[in-house]
């Protein structure tokens, strides 16, 4: 089954939760909706399930518009963030619920329901918990019950809202692998919401990065990390160090580092260069960067670099030159990616250490001439 989201808009009062979201999800895909809180990812999940309604746009599942289809007829499995298990029912009754509320003509016989519940319990590896109440089992077990309950109705599409948000780190790790395997084994099409980029990267076939109700980029995790579409995605997908720069004629001059010029495809004007700490090269020789401290544990070696009032850690691979503490050095930023300066303040990545003001051409020219 395929899901097509066509230009979805949804606002709560003055706040746009979804601001023109379009996305196509292919059969069998495992998609992560990744974004900071308030980015609209949960709203997107809820409109797909029919728990919330869009102001405009359309959701098309298997060529069928969901426009006038209520939640109960969508056949979409939904796993809630805090599981929302029916507290007055046993685990088995919880799982059976979706089958028991079917109209008589489509309802399996009682024995068929029991068998299906037991097979789901076994699939979830909680076969012995059928008679317990939700408050009597652990968080990880509740998660499995919630999943079993959603799968009982054989949904075309499985939606999971922060599936691991309420679990401790250890359980989370093992459930991730397990859920991914389950998705494969059952041939599901699944979409899950998370604010944890590591989780999204590890589990999903593709990750959609959301910010203030818009999709910033949709790509496979590796590509998202290697080729972020903009400064926000770069910052969100992993540790970043940023530099102000000014672009003219396809070249970016980095503010405060007059000897560094980066090739880029940005239009002329203020811009920002982002680089992952491990991509920063340290070169011997007097330069603007000062090594504040060194620390090495095992094979890992890190230099704390102070530059222009900022401080960041640079990991240095074994066997490479590294400066002693107190020394100055030059920086190699040739792996940096240059993006136009974000037009809105909210889009500006927090620069790890301090906020950056956009560079002004005048200031840059003065610095350049003085250098």
């Amino acid at each position, binding site marked *: 089954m395929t899901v097509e989201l066509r230009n979805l808009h949804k606002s709560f009062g003055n706040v746009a939760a979804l601001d023109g979201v379009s996305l196509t999800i292919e059969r069998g895909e495992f998609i992560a909706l990744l974004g900071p809180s308030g980015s609209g990812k949960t709203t997107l999940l809820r409109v797909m399930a029919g728990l919330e309604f869009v102001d405009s746009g359309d959701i098309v599942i298997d060529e069928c518009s969901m426009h006038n289809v209520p939640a*109960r007829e969508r*056949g979409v*499995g*939904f796993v*809630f963030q805090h599981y*929302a298990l*029916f507290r007055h*029912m046993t685990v088995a009754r919880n799982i059976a*619920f979706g089958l028991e*509320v079917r109209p008589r003509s489509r309802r399996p016989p009682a024995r068929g329901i029991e068998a299906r519940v037991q097979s789901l319990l076994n699939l979830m590896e909680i076969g012995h918990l059928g008679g317990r109440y939700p408050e009597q089992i652990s968080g990880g077990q509740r998660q499995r019950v919630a999943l079993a309950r959603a799968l009982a109705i054989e949904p075309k599409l499985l939606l999971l809202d922060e599936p691991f948000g309420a679990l401790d780190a250890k359980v989370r790790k093992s459930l991730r692998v397990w859920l991914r395997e389950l998705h494969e084994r059952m041939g599901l099409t699944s979409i899950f919401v998370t604010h944890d980029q590591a989780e999204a990267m590890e589990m999903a076939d593709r990750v959609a990065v959301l910010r203030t109700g818009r999709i910033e980029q949709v790509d496979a995790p590796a590509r998202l990390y290697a080729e972020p579409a903009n400064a926000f995605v770069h910052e969100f997908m992993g540790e970043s160090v940023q530099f102000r720069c000014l672009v003219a004629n396809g070249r970016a001059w980095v503010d405060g580092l007059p000897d560094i010029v980066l090739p880029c495809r940005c239009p002329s004007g203020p811009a920002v260069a982002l680089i992952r700490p491990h991509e920063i090269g340290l070169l011997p020789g007097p330069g603007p960067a000062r090594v504040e401290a060194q620390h090495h544990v095992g094979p890992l070696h890190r230099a704390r670099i102070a530059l222009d009032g900022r401080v960041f850690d640079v990991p240095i691979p074994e066997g490479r030159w590294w400066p002693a503490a107190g020394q100055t050095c030059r920086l190699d930023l040739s792996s940096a990616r240059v993006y136009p300066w974000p037009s809105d303040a909210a889009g500006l990545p927090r620069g790890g250490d301090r906020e950056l003001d956009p560079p002004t051409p005048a200031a840059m020219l003065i610095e350049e001439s003085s250098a």
Partner: protein
Amino acid sequence: MSEAATQETQATRAALTILTILLLVLLLLLPLVVVFTEAFKRGLGGIVEALAEPDAIAAIELTLIVAAVSVPLNTVCGVAAAWCIARFRFPGRGLLITLIELPLSVSPVISGLVWVLLFGANGWLGPALDRLGVRIIFAVPGLILATAFVTFPFVARTLIPLMEQQGAAEEEAALTLGASGWQTFRRVTLPNIRWGLLYGVLLCNARAMGEFGAVAVVSGHVLGQTMTMPLQVEALFNDYDWVGAFTIAGLLALLALLTLAVKAALEWRIGERSGALL
């Protein structure tokens, strides 16, 4: 030094405890004892005699009828109102909450008087209804209206915090699993609120049967016709029929004690299930 200080505190504590117990005995226990001793003044025979009075039987019947109509009415309306308020955010929601609590803050006499002003012989709708031959004031419908008004808040007020605390997630889960609105209510919402609901209904019923002020205004005091138990108690008392008055008062007191016992049991039950919600 410190021992003296502790002892002083202990003495104060003891004094306060004794004072509280004295007050409780004086204000709560003594009246209860008086009610039953007065009722039994002429022995069991007196009580049987008092209860066999046609007017007494009529009063008991009327009280049961009024409660039997107003309590279910308020249960249904209360659940609907609580659901509305707990699940939706809409303009005027705050006003609705205030309106629901209004009967608690308004004097019961006023609660009765509004119906007289509306449906009485000189009221807004009274003459028109009179021409149709419909009697509301000084008749059973008036008693039911006044009682329903006074007892409206109990169910809704018990359920609103409970439903807000439980949230809508379970209901949403039921919807995504294919349940209809009614199935969701019957299988998910209702079981989740059942103890709270029972608690609210109990309080509502106790007040419905014991209400005096509002009912007194709309009743018209027609013996054997529009006298509920509390009104009957007053009438008998004014006639110096002490045994009769206290017998019916004793019945009401028994009802109160029963309510208290069930309420305590429910509170214990609710507290155990979901951690002190009330």
